[in-house]
């Protein structure tokens, strides 16, 4: 009886390890047909401030982790900039702090509205990621309203969300079920608003991992941007 139970536990442990391994790998990476056929080239990119929402999953329910979420946003921002610059892209960082003298209210509102519009579209992309390959999703021509010192080819949106379980929750709440972090990268055509490239991955993290967000997000960010086609030549 005991031997049977032990085998059962080992079997379940293997299954969990296998599933975790699958989850840790990239789940989806899709390219717009125009990008695939190289009808559109990317050289200069505008990085829209990433948005990350992580919560702590405790025995007594979810708890906000706003500070850790903000730290993660900053870490991802630095990682994306470094990775893309090292690949030869020109990247403009579009971080607009409140009250910045370089911007006015209208520009901040415009950026907020674009972020909101991306979030709406993001839900639909999530439903059918493979349709990115059919060129089905667009943010619309309003993306061209962003004023920049020089034109860019595409805008990069990053979204992260998920929860990290505490030890107590792991014990009482039935293990890791439902506890993971989802991160996605969307590259949007700066003229038409079309989704040119979309990558989504999921991984498991603990509250301790959030203390070093650069380390936690480094691998996934690198993998996510790896298949973005190399910078186009003869582009602004």
């Amino acid at each position: 009886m005991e031997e049977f139970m032990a085998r059962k536990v080992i079997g379940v442990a293997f299954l969990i390890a296998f599933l975790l391994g699958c989850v840790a790998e990239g789940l989806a990476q899709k390219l717009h047909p125009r990008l695939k056929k190289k009808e559109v080239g990317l050289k200069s990119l505008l990085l829209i401030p990433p948005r990350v929402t992580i919560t702590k999953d405790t025995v007594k329910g979810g708890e906000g982790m706003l500070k850790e979420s903000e730290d993660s946003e900053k870490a991802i921002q630095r990682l994306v900039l470094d990775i893309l610059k090292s690949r030869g892209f020109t990247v403009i960082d579009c971080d607009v702090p409140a009250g910045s003298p370089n911007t006015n209210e209208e520009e901040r509102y415009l950026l907020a509205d674009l972020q909101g519009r991306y979030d709406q579209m993001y839900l639909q992309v999530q439903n059918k990621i493979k349709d990115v390959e059919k060129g089905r999703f667009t943010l619309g021509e309003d993306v061209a309203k962003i004023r920049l010192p020089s034109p860019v080819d595409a805008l990069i949106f990053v979204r992260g969300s998920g929860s990290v379980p505490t030890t107590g929750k792991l014990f009482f709440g039935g293990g890791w079920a439902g506890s993971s972090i989802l991160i996605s990268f969307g590259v949007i055509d700066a003229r038409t608003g079309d989704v040119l490239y979309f990558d989504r991955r999921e991984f498991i993290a603990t509250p301790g991992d959030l203390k070093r967000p650069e380390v936690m997000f480094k691998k996934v960010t690198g993998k996510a941007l790896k298949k973005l086609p190399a910078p186009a030549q003869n582009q602004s």
Partner: protein
Amino acid sequence: MIRQEAIMSEKNKTLLVIRAFIFFLFALVSTGLSQNVPAQNTQKNEPFAFTKVELSLLEQCDLLDRRFEKEGLVYTDEALNAYLAQIGKSIIPPGEPPEHVQWRFRVLRDPATNAFALPNGSIYLHSGILSSLENESQLAAVIGHEVAHVLGRHSYKENRSYRKKIAAINVIGTVARSVPGGGVASVIALGAASTARIFLTISIYHHSQDLEREADLFAAERLLDSNYDPKEMLALFKLLDRDYDVEQIEPFYSDHPKLQERIAYVDQLLKSKSPNAVSVESLAAARTRYLMMTEKISRHDIQLNFDNRRYRTALARSQKLVNFNPNSSENMCYLADSYRLLGPNTMEPTGEELSPDGRKKLLEMKRKLTPDEEERTRMETAAGQSAWKTNRADAEEQYRKALELDAYNAVAHRGLGMLYERMEKPQQAIEEYRKYLELKPDASDRMIIQRRLDALPLK
């Protein structure tokens, strides 16, 4: 014999676990449900002992305030903020704010008809609620409701209750899972755990409803004591229930009491007390003041409704603006834009759309289809074609009226250009787009309009 003992011991263990489980179940469910005692009077300003969790919650609220601002979600208008603070001051009971509360009244750029309060005293009024309210008394009622949540420490109370119940759900689940499987005992234990989960979830909502009721009654009391019309609170409830774009689905259980219930208990309170005498002239002046102060944010909100595909709501808000200030070319232009963007949709939701199945279908459509696909789908129907015919005629008429009021209204020319482009009248569209670019050479969408112009066939 040894085998027999082992079996007995396993049986005893199972019985023990079941007993422990039943004890836990009753103990925790009764703890959870005991939270549902009617909430205490908000006006009593009782001392409140902050726990570590609550101090952490306060920190999160301050971060959230900053995040809203940083992300461009807070609408900045000093005059409007001062006006909201003035109404807030008239509603908040005199005296120092409670510990860890600093009153702040802000406008959130969100077209949903909503408002909320953070426990640190930040009260956020959505642009959607400001553009839908009709007068100052209704605004005072909304602020009063949110002030009650802060003064009554409702967020903390709700959080305490929620945490206890969620912990109970988790512990019950764990105990249930620990009952050895394969027998009737485990089935009973898991079934009881599921039942307990449902009861605890319902009790969370019950607690929220109690707090909402308390906030409503506090707001009504404050209106009775101030120079506002308390009856407007009843009108406010009906107004909040308007669902132009058919977005609400009747939930299984809501954290707010039902509309009829809210109207009934507030009405009962109003009938039991005599309000301050406020002259009709004073109320009319307050109404005009409210509409003047919120004209700009209402326009801003209409644009947010456009962005969120809430075209019927945008139409209702624009019509309200035109009714208030019919001589404004800008207001007229928003009305015209609303008709144009309404496209193949009817002005009011149809009976079919309002049925439970219709609501589900609409939500499903919005979830699955992109805006372009949704419009194409509607346009393929006879009803869609008919609505588009009416809406485009109304749009053109309103654009013309806007230009009669102000011949230099560039936005009206742009709107007409877009309307003609959609109606496949390229020459007229080109003319209007050119006028727009002439009148507004530094427009933020200059490139977009130029591209549209370049794509249109010249004669």
